[in-house]
């Protein structure tokens, strides 16, 4: 694992020691090479996990998330180059340093063997993200967004710290590699119910569960493009990853404790999808869309069947790439019109036809068009939820329909119709932007050909 962590840490001195005209080239190059190295983790010969050391390991669940994390850094750098072009050199370097620090912490979080180490790194990822949102966000609301982001996650995760220390005290070890062989059922008691809640709430807030999701639209909207990308693509998946790991030691409470959260997620996915239909702010629409998709992941994780786990992992990877791409597309609009309002940048297909093609592909993958991996994930989740309870098909089907509705609404509003008079002088698409979209879409399409690498450890 050091072959990925040390080069990522060394991106920071690379940034500070590079010449002014080479910082972006150097960091983009080396971050792409780091993502190439991380692909080696997909070679999982053992049925169990690749154990690199006492501190780090990877298994079929964490390897795809790790590859997604390392792939996203060069994309974030490319997306940020324009809005940072007028910043002083020191601020540009600080920005890249924050992104690199966040990347390092995320890599260590996904590969941590020990739960306390995972917790510390999970909390540590909040710091660079908060700095990125509050320092480089565009509007004054970014301060409020940062507060919501920080305190929602902290409030949810402090009980997790207490629970982990308590479990460590009782069992002597919180190592993932040992927990999977620890078949001791938790006795049915009030304290274990609270233990379940304490363990799960941090990840529910992070996902986010509907009801605890108020931080997400604020943070996603007010963050700069790299902040939005990393929040939507990776940080939400931290919650899913944590839930998948921690549910192994919370049985049998999960079978009955999951009910209220399942109901909240099933209802919440419809509510947030419906809210998307009424959004005027493009980034806000994509943010609520993320809540809706993550509600599917919560349902899948709480059902706890092999197919639902496969669906959860596939959906996390698929949504990571899709929502990051949608935020990049929204940012390309924002850089031209300086407004996030959808109807102010409409009819763009006439002016930017290639960008319209990317918009079409992103919208189609967002609504889980076959044969994309989004569909594979959603289908697994829908099938396993139908198997769990037949009635859920009504809610799932409604959600799929509304997802298609708002995805097409977003596409038609931004691309179709006559363009407004104030945007007929916008700049054509840059190669940078088209390359960014291609680098999002190509892995998504390639994974449709070989989805088994993202189906997790129950495949």
């Amino acid at each position, binding site marked *: 694992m050091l072959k990925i962590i040390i080069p990522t840490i060394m991106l920071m001195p690379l940034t500070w020691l590079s010449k002014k005209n080479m910082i972006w080239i150097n960091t983009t190059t080396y971050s792409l090479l780091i993502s190439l190295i991380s692909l080696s983790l997909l070679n999982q010969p053992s049925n169990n996990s690749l154990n690199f050391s006492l501190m780090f390991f990877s298994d079929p669940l964490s390897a795809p998330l790790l590859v997604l994390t390392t*792939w996203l850094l060069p994309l974030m750098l490319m997306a940020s*180059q324009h809005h940072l072009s007028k910043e002083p050199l020191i601020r540009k370097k600080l920005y890249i340093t924050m992104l690199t620090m966040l990347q390092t912490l995320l890599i260590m979080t996904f590969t941590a063997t020990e739960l306390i180490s995972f917790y510390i790194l999970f909390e540590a990822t909040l710091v660079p993200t908060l700095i990125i949102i509050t320092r480089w966000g565009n509007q004054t609301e970014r301060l409020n967004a940062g507060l919501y982001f920080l305190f929602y996650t902290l409030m949810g995760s402090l009980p997790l710290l207490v629970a982990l220390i308590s479990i460590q005290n009782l069992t002597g070890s919180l190592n993932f590699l040992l927990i999977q062989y620890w078949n001791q059922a938790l006795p049915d008691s009030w304290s274990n119910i609270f233990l379940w809640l304490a363990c799960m709430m941090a990840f529910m807030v992070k996902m986010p569960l509907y009801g605890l999701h108020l931080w997400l639209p604020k943070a996603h909207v007010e963050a700069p493009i790299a902040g939005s990308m990393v929040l939507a693509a990776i940080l939400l998946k931290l919650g899913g990853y944590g839930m998948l790991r921690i549910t192994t030691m919370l049985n049998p409470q999960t079978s009955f404790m999951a009910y209220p959260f399942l109901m909240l997620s099933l209802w919440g996915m419809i509510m947030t999808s419906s809210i998307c239909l009424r959004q005027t702010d493009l980034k806000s629409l994509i943010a609520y869309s993320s809540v809706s998709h993550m509600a599917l992941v919560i349902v899948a994780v709480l059902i706890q069947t092999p197919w639902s786990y496969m669906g959860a992992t596939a959906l996390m990877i698929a949504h990571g790439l899709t929502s990051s791409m949608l935020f990049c597309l929204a940012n390309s609009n924002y850089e031209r019109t300086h407004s996030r*309002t959808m109807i102010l940048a409409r009819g763009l297909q006439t002016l930017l036809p290639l960008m319209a093609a990317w918009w079409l592909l992103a919208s189609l993958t967002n609504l889980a068009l076959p044969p994309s991996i989004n569909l594979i994930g959603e289908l697994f989740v829908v099938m396993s939820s139908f198997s769990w309870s037949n009635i859920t098909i009504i809610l799932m089907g409604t959600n799929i329909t509304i997802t298609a509705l708002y995805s097409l609404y977003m596409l038609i509003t931004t691309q179709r119709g006559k363009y407004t008079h104030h945007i007929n002088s916008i700049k054509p698409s840059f190669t*940078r932007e088209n390359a960014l979209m291609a680098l999002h879409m190509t892995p998504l399409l390639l994974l449709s050909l070989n989805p088994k690498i993202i189906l997790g450890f129950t*495949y």
Partner: protein
Amino acid sequence: MAAGLLGLCTRRLLAAAATRGIPAARVRWESSSSRAVIAPSAVVGKRGPEPTTRWQEDPDTEDENLYEKNPDSHGYDKDPAVDLWNMRVVFFFGFSIVLVLGSTFVAYLPDYRWSRNLLALAVFAFFQGASPRSLHSVFMFYYPSHHTENCWCVCLSCCVMSSQRDHLDLNAAQIEDRSKRAV
């Protein structure tokens, strides 16, 4: 009460007029029956413009058109040389190296699940009494073109187990149990 309500409505009207930027009439009314007083708000005229009048979230920008000075701009940098090299680096490392080589690597990853299942079948069949030669020919049916390390593993394990099987005296239930534990 009516005077109070009237005062409330009037205050609301004045406030609405103030927020819309319409100058309010500077009159002061005092009720004779109650202590209600209506006067224009002290902050009339001091309120900033409504958000709807400002349609851009980021209005005070100085947009620089990169295409003006460099018609071949790729959007990375103002300097044409740096811009060109940045584009080349992204395309070379992003597409040619990572996507092409990476997807080739991923495509050629062995299917460990398939090979584990095949080995499990072979072990089960062995404990059912199949000879090593017949197991080897079954495996070669799936991989006729070349030997792989999994093939050798199967062959080797079959040879080792066949030499040990003669020393074992197992009934059918024990054979099934051992084969299940082996997988």
